[in-house]
């Protein structure tokens, strides 16, 4: 399977929501959901060793219909994780290597004049896939970045006045190098905001790294990875996540955390309402992965850093480099630790 292949492209011009077609099928039980979700995680773990929590967060974002930004130094397995995640689900996957000369049309697709039909015909770009891997997204020009980011938010592509819906589910897994380099264009905050979560891979521990040395000698483990869930199953899992209950207390908690980021002294820019929305959505997926059908404040706590930190701008340092990112995670943790947890509708006594 080519990394650049385009499969299952939604070529229809209408914006019909794919999910509505899936509605009649019976929802899956919590047990079935857990079984499948764990299968996905286990499958990815065969490729990425010792990064359980990163993998869980990635799966959480996938199930929550969000987009994932992986930010780390080169060579720690960002792309490997993205590909493993894409591969464990039997769905269309495309990979775009972002370069400074990449054009928007290289992502969205182009309308070509078909001389036989005597009309323009839309050739879908690589964005038409269930999972889109955007490698080194900050190497592309802002114009190209925004083409992708627009499709991420709107889940459709508009070319020459015609809108084309993207397949359902649609997840962008982007990687970027945090270190300032020549020829990179850092994502503006407005665009970072579109990613549900940002995760850092981090270096593997020594045992995992040693194990990797052995396994890589015998060929890429990615090749042995077979899909464990079907696309249909994935949609049902997404439906399950959507049905997870969020109590008013938890909503209040998420809002309180977001509000706290907006008034914190160390932050110049706090979390947007979209951030709050995505925090709750991601928490629902995490709750489902934990076998619950309701969200706990613990879910919010666990996801606050990945979901919120990359949207914040510190007030003191202008650069949001590696140090800035860690500092932001610390600030977010501090805010979460200081926000009272509401208890039930009656609130704290």
């Amino acid at each position, binding site marked *: 399977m080519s990394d650049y292949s385009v499969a299952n492209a939604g070529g229809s011009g209408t914006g019909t929501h794919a999910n509505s077609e899936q509605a009649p099928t019976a929802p899956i039980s919590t047990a079935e959901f857990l079984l499948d979700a764990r299968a996905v995680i286990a499958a990815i773990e065969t490729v990425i060793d010792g990064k359980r929590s990163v993998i869980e967060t990635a799966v959480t974002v996938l199930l929550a219909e969000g987009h994932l930004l992986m930010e780390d130094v080169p060579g720690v397995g960002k792309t490997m994780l993205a590909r493993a995640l894409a591969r464990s689900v039997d769905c269309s996957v495309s990979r775009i290597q972002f370069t400074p000369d990449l054009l928007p049309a290289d992502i969205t697709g182009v309308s070509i004049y078909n001389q036989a039909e005597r009309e323009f015909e839309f050739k879908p770009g690589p964005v038409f896939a269930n999972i889109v891997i955007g490698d080194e997204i900050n190497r592309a020009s802002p114009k190209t970045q925004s083409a992708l980011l627009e499709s991420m938010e709107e889940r459709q592509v508009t070319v020459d006045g015609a809108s084309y819906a993207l397949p359902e589910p649609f997840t962008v897994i982007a990687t970027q190098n945090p270190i300032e380099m020549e020829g990179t264009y850092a994502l503006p905050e407005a665009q970072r905001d579109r990613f549900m979560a940002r995760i850092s891979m981090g270096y593997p521990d020594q045992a995992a790294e040693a194990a990797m040395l052995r396994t890589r000698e015998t060929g890429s483990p990615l090749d042995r990875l077979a899909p464990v869930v079907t696309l249909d199953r994935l949609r049902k899992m997404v439906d399950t996540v959507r049905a997870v209950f969020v109590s008013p207390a938890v909503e209040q908690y998420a809002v309180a955390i977001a509000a706290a980021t*907006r008034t914190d002294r160390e932050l110049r820019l706090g979390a947007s309402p979209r951030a709050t929305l995505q925090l709750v959505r991601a928490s629902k997926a995490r709750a489902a992965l934990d076998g619950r059908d309701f969200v*706990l404040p613990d879910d919010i706590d666990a996801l606050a850093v990945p979901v919120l930190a990359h949207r914040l701008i510190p007030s003191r340092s202008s650069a949001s480099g590696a140090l800035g990112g860690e500092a932001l995670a610390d600030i977010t943790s501090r805010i979460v630790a200081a926000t*009272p947890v509401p208890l*039930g509708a009656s609130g704290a006594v």
Partner: protein
Amino acid sequence: MVLADSTAPATAGRVPARQPYRDPTRANRARALQNTRTWARLALFTVALLVAFGSLSTLIDGVVWWIASALTIVLPVLAIGIATQLGRRSWQPFVAGFGVAVVSLTFGYARDAALFGIIPTFDTLGRWGELVNAGILSITTQRIPAEATEGILFLLAILAVVSVVFIAPALDRVPAVAALPLLVVLDIPVAVRAGIAEPHWFVFVVIAYLALLRIGRRRMPLTSVLGTAAVVVVGSLLLPAAFPPAREVVNDANTGVGTGLNPLIDLGDDLRRDDTVTAVTYVTDAPGGLYLRLATLDEFNGINWEPDSSTDPDNDVAEFPPPDGLTDEVPRAAYSATIQVGDVGGRWLPLPYPATSVQGLEGDWRWEPDGLAVRSSGADARGQEYDVTFLDIQPDLAQLTADLEPDVPSRYLALPNEMPEVIAQTAEQVAGTGSTYQKAIALQEFFTSGDFDYSVDAPVDEGYDGTGVGVIERFLEVRSGYCVHFASAMAVMARTVGIPSRIVVGFQPGEAEDIDGVPGFTVSSADLHAWPELYFEGIGWLRFEPTPGRGSFPDYSSIEAIDDPTTPEFEGVNPSAVPVDPSPAAPNLPDEETVVDGTITVEEQNPAPIITAIAVFALALLLTPAGVRVLVRLRRMRRVRAGDAAAAWAEIRDTAHDHDWVAPDSETPRQLGTRLAIVVGHEPVARLQDGVESAAYDRPGSLTMTVDDVAELRHAIASAAPLGVRLRATFLPPSLMARAGFGSKPPPVE
């Protein structure tokens, strides 16, 4: 792209979303508002407390005590206010208030026993202890209204300081606690005697208190205000019921005779009491019984006779000055007596007149220069045993009738400006135109010749009890009364005819009886007596006896053999102690042992109410945290029963907090549960945690928890803690302190 065009709107557009910094002016405004509220609360609390202290005016005479108390209230309040405004830590106001309170108590009451007058030392503590004892004593021995002795002032100061230092720093967090000291102070008069409290004090205090509660809560609904008012009023009426021991003690204390600031005031009550006690026993080498004087009252203001207040502080009772006006020509005899004071509490020492020396007293006693009465500001006469030497003045007729112009301070002749005409008219008619001495004898005879009845009840029944000129007018009309009336009437009438006079309160000689095998006298509380003393230039003060049936005529009053064959040969020779009734017109006169009905009760002020109030206050302070904690728990358990998991979890969290767990409210049930499970076991925690999580965050109607689960976990947490921690958890629960804001300074408002 033009930079200016693009950046300006972008910046403008971001501002609302960003809120990059706290707006400094807004923060300042919030702080200023907070400070204003703090000061407003402190001011209202101070006003309420000052008014509450004002309600004690029914118990204590004058205003000096109130001003002193006000100082000990205001100074710590100011310190607390400043510390609240400037300080960052919540304990700072308390420490500031405490420090200022200690310094003012030191400076105000133990200056000379402290370093630089303000730094307390062990000596200071000793002095304070003495003051407390003296205060308790003077409350015991005084009648209402009591004189504000230094001891009483100190007790009031302690009450004030405790009220301020422990309550004022908490006002910002829990304004309602202001009620505690206010109620305690307001209820002191109620506890001392039902019906003595004046309602208007309550009203003012309640108004100030409600205003205090309303600060910063403008939207407090009217029902809450009325509800609070009702609770405060009802509570203040119910609180006295918490003082039964005090009341019992008040009754018990009625067995003794109290001689307060002015023993004359309650003399009638003491005479009317139905249980007599042994007041004094004495043995003397004088031929007969002794009139024992307690207090000399020489200032007559038209209503009351008041004691001379000019005590020389530095004299010594071992040696008295020569009595006023006594010249060497006057014959005299020196005698001595050993006096044992029985159940007479108070600051006045029973002594014959004129005493020349007193030995063997305990405590600090001083003689008064004019009346030679001996009094103490701290010691108690009760139980004292002492030896006294004294003179018996025996003027001869020539000296008595010398009729020299009296050379005495004008107060001995002072009369109120407005006096009923009848008094002076009667006096002139009775006194006639003879010598001073003849006038005095005539006045004495006027009262004792049979026209006047002795009755301890008649003046009370007729409503003219007392010593004022109006009373004397009625007394001259009704011609019935007891020693106070006779003494006051004769003293006033003597002054109208130009004879200097004063009233003495003391005991008539009593009953001859063997004291430890030696012939002596026993004086009972029924022998309490008042008599006039008149001044004769060259001789000094001489006792007269205008009360029919009481005491005895002095020798000199019969020198002329005025037609009174019953005159005894020496004063006080009255072996039966049942006086000869010189008044056949009133055969049924009650004598000094009259049993009266209980309508007029002996009103003895007792330290118990104030001590009890302070103790109750301290105990209430001590138990308040525990009580509030229990109330909070009960309320939560009620809600748990109603299915409120949040209440259950809040209770568990506070329990954990109480037992030294850090349980911030930013912790989720699961996080705390995980930590708790390490110590108290997974089982109880897991059940409660699941219950809480389901109930708090799952769909409504999910599984809830039981009170038993909470109780079990509470027990598990408590039993894992050491005893000290558990005790503190009960009596000083940290969760409550944190709730009240003692753990950290609260964030600025808004």
